[in-house]
């Protein structure tokens, strides 16, 4: 790649937001360069200032209160000092941007053709409509939208998420920009789709000679796609360098910690558990207090006894209404799933969106009544049990949800949120409840003094701890975790997983762990169900499923999973290309 001087140069960038409590510096003296045709990854957790940086590159802070100092040069023009008009001429033309959420980043009320043509005509006002349309079809074709001549007249909602992200990318390509800025382009996508989009970006960079700036919270996402990487924390670049060097031999402790926290798909449940226990012992030892309880080992295979939960051929149907007066159609979200779950065990359920994994967990919890099949919990058939009879069982099965923000009532103090369940179950002694709640708060890693605080005072990870405490208060036999860590930063995610593992050791809990992240699922699960479109495509002991996948779909998933090693990542990419080529052939 010919590097004729940087196409993007950022020098001592500082972005400050004035707030009621004084100025907040979101970016503190950031500098980097991207050569023409080069690729840079910007990695950081939430609050690191990476998104603020990418918006600054587009000059999108104009009109807000943000104060920007330093220099941002894109294709030789200074974004900070350019006039509004110059800036507009630059946007989309010299530097195009692909945003995080493809579901939201296209205008829902215009056809994609209209939006693509518009992007072209701004910068080529003299171009005829036909020429612009032709260009749009080309761009759609380029990003791999099938039948682009036809699809150009479709509306965004008629595309899947991955396809939409391709459309957004196509829109970026309309004016042959010198730089493509992709801010978390794959965060909202399933792994397989994520892989495809990353592959596409990589391919475009190579074929069109564009520079690529890839912004992500996930080191594994950037690993295979960039040459250089900047690791940001609290608005500062803590480490910057060649991607291989940074990933293989990180210098800064933060980078090291970050890397350590990334769940790796090659790490097995046993390894992870051993590591967690060792860390715990070390920590306890360092603190010099407390005894580490002996690992609660699930009794040996021979003496498993009765399964805690037995699910047989469960199916769940929804009526899909066509509209106010439309006829409804049946939609089978889960079609005949069977499994057994033993005490002290963790069952991982993995699948992409629409696989039916969440529906399955809700059915097992009897939040839904199964349309077909049988669910036996703790020796009792609960398949069609009435809500009244279910009530005593509710304390035995608890749930932890994905969003730590919406699952806690903002008007209840943490203590009340956790203690309510006890009260519902008949405990009247307020002092007793308080003691119990405070014990639990301490156990999940929070201060007992947090009892009277409201949820908004806590971070996402802390809230998830609260949610876990709430689930634990009734000493349930089974906890169903539905994507419990997917909304959290990697380091927080790691801590929560650790907590879950410790709790399992301490209380002999049984988990069903539902997630889309293959690596996470592997590390926490004894056994795994791989689901797709309501069906189980593969199940079994987690190590054997991961190491020796039997189904084609599992292999695809594994191939799509981002990996940290850049070379490994590229090998995966080649593999995927072959898989695709094989399918086409």
């Amino acid at each position, binding site marked *: 790649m010919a590097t004729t001087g940087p196409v993007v140069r950022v020098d001592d960038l500082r972005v400050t937001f004035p707030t009621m409590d004084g100025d907040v510096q979101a970016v503190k003296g950031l500098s980097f360069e991207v050569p023409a045709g080069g690729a840079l990854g910007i990695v950081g957790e939430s609050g690191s200032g990476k998104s603020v940086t990418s918006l600054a590159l*587009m000059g999108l802070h104009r009109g807000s209160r943000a104060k920007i100092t330093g220099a941002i040069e894109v294709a030789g023009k200074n974004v900070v000092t350019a006039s509004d008009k110059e800036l507009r001429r630059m946007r989309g033309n010299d530097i*195009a941007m692909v945003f995080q959420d493809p579901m939201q*980043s*296209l*205008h829902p009320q215009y056809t994609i053709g209209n939006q693509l043509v*518009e*992007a072209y005509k701004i910068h080529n006002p003299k171009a005829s409509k036909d020429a612009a349309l032709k260009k749009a079809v080309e761009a759609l074709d380029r990003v791999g939208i099938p039948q682009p001549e036809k699809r150009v007249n479709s509306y965004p909602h008629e595309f899947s998420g991955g396809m939409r992200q391709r459309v957004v990318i196509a829109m970026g390509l309309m004016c042959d920009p010198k730089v493509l800025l992709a801010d978390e382009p794959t965060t909202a996508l399933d792994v397989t789709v994520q892989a495809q989009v990353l592959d596409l970006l990589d391919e475009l960079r190579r074929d069109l000679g564009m520079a690529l700036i890839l912004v992500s919270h996930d080191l594994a996402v950037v690993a295979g796609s960039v040459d250089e990487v900047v690791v940001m924390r609290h608005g500062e670049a803590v480490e910057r360098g060649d991607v291989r060097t940074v990933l293989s031999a990180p210098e800064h402790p933060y980078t090291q910690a970050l890397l350590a926290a990334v769940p790796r798909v090659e790490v097995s449940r046993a390894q992870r558990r051993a590591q967690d226990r060792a860390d715990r012992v070390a920590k306890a030892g360092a603190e010099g207090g407390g005894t580490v309880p002996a690992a609660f080992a699930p009794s040996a295979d021979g003496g498993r006894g009765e399964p805690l939960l037995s699910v047989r051929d469960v199916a769940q149907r929804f009526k899909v*209404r066509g*509209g106010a007066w439309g006829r409804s159609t049946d939609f089978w979200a889960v079609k005949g799933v069977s499994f057994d779950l033993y005490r002290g065990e963790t069952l991982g359920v993995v699948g992409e969106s629409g696989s039916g994994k969440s529906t399955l967990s809700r059915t097992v919890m009897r939040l839904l009544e199964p349309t077909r099949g049988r669910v036996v919990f703790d020796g009792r058939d609960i398949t069609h049990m009435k809500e009244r009879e279910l009530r005593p069982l509710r304390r035995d099965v608890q749930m932890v949800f994905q969003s730590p923000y919406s699952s806690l009532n903002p008007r209840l103090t943490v203590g009340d949120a956790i203690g309510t369940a006890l009260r519902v179950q008949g405990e009247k002694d307020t002092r007793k409840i308080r003691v119990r709640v405070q014990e639990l708060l301490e156990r999940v890693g929070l201060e007992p003094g947090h009892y009277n605080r409201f949820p908004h005072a806590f971070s996402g990870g802390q809230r998830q701890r609260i949610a876990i405490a709430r689930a634990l208060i009734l000493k349930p036999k089974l906890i169903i975790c539905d994507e419990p860590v997917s909304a959290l930063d990697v380091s927080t995610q790691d801590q929560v997983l650790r907590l879950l593992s410790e709790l399992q050791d301490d209380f002999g809990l049984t988990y069903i762990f539902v997630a889309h992240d293959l690596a996470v699922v592997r590390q926490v699960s004894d056994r795994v169900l791989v689901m797709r479109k309501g069906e189980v495509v593969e199940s079994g002991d987690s190590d054997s499923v991961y190491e020796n996948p039997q189904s084609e779909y599992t292999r695809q998933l594994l191939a799509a999973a981002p990996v940290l090693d850049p070379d490994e990542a590229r090998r995966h990419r080649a593999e995927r290309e072959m898989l695709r080529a094989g399918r086409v052939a």
Partner: protein
Amino acid sequence: MPPPLTEMLNYILRRLGAGLLLLAVVTAVTFWIFFVLPKWAGVTPRGMAALYVGKAPTPEALDATVERLGLDQPVVVQFFNFVKDLIFGTEYVFGRETVECAAPCLGYSFTTNSPVLEQLLSRLPVTVSLALGAAVIWLIGGVAVGVLSAVRKGSLFDRLAMGTALVGVSLPIYFTGLLALAFVVHSWKLLPVPRYVPLAEDPGAWFTAMILPWITLAFLHAAQYARQTRAGMLEVLGEDYIRTARAKGLSERKVIFKHALRPALTPILTIFGLDVGLVLGGAVLTEKVFSLKGIGAYAIDAIIGKDLPVVLGVTLLGAVFIVICNLVVDLLYPLVDPRVRIAA
């Protein structure tokens, strides 16, 4: 994508069917309110008849009226007769004259003996003039102010406009209308006393007669639309696709008018349809304040005079307008927002 024609026709027919059902329910409820509530309050058929005859009526005169108007029949029978006449038409006898009342026959007013349908139709142009004129003003005015306020959020204009809007929403028509009349017409004599002139007769006079009622009625609604538009715009301006539009290099004007306004207006379309339907059914206060002889004035006179056939006629017409306006909105919706599909 627009649904195939047959599918759409099917949908329209089904909606109209549902509309008819609604009309039947509205009629039944009106009947019920009209007959059962007074009965609970202790009013007898004779007592009702007394409303439609002169002073100091003899019991015989009352009985004759009770019989002529059928007030002594069970409500169900009266309701049935009303519906029957509506569908098949009927004949009325006046003196020695027999008058045909063709379907849809809404009957004759108890108090004025004039045919209700004819009265409604003759008053319709006034109400339609008022409603549509005001609707245009409040939609354009409200949306313009809302957009400007949203774009200049926190500015002096925004605060002034929203303050005015708050006042506008809270002030009743009979206050603003009387104020407008007192100053614009009676004190400053900027406009002549509003007296409705048919558009076809003299467009200029029509306009000068309607402009004050339009503005008064529009002011009330515009305030609401301004607030809604502003809120909608602010929400839409925070959407990702607006950022996308800016990132393309679009001018701010295009961002606002092409990309932000359309989604912001989409929910307003629903309210607009309902409001226009309501106003078409009679802007009671506006018509009364400006002494316009429209449907609303007719309605209020009928309610005060306990004139059942007119009350029914006005209610039905209002319901018809609401049904139609809602249908039109629902049919327009997929064109405005392609995500919405008419379910067949």
